[in-house]
């Protein structure tokens, strides 16, 4: 039975495009992210500009610093 031609997939980045795409992905993965869940259990990602997200990020950074100090000291 003859094989059917493969369905073409989306074009992959190559060359400089591939490097840029990888850099963008890594940058996105390192970006701060805040997700909260209300009593209903629905996750809700807060925008980085949200003042609530800023307060949560500040508190989280202090918590991580304190935890690292406790772990090393």
């Amino acid at each position, binding site marked *: 039975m003859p094989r059917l031609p493969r369905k073409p997939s989306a074009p992959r980045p190559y060359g400089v495009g591939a490097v840029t795409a990888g850099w963008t992905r890594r940058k996105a993965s390192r970006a*701060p992210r*805040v997700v*909260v869940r209300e009593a209903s259990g629905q996750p809700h990602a807060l925008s980085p500009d949200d003042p*609530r997200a800023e307060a949560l990020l500040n*508190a989280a950074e202090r*918590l*991580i610093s*304190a*935890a690292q100090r406790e772990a090393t000291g």
Partner: protein
Amino acid sequence: MRETFTGGVFWRADPMTPALTPSLALEYLHELSADIVAGVVLAADGALLAGAEELAVAARDLLAAAEDATDVHVTTADGAVFAARDDRHAIALACGRFALPSLARYDLRMVLADLAGGGGSKTREAEAAEADDADEAAA
């Protein structure tokens, strides 16, 4: 701890603890995940039940900033923070950047449920003392 083998049944002399205590809860969470750097258990009013006071200060600020949220997950460049609370307790954990959010959330929820199971914020001795006081008052 004393164990006796009696015809195929192991009998343990010490009764099981009625619920997880806050300090045991932290140790349990540490054993569940190697990504956890440190954690803290707070009462509903913010009182420290287990963990370091320095962590508790930041955890209280985090929970205050979370407003009505019951679960919080914050990822920063240095690590991740997971926090969950119910009517009686709140737990905040500082983890490495690659901790899995779904697992951390599940573990936190399970431990919170165990803590709520039988007065986890009190020690067995405190409960026994309260029971004695109530008996004396009734008599």
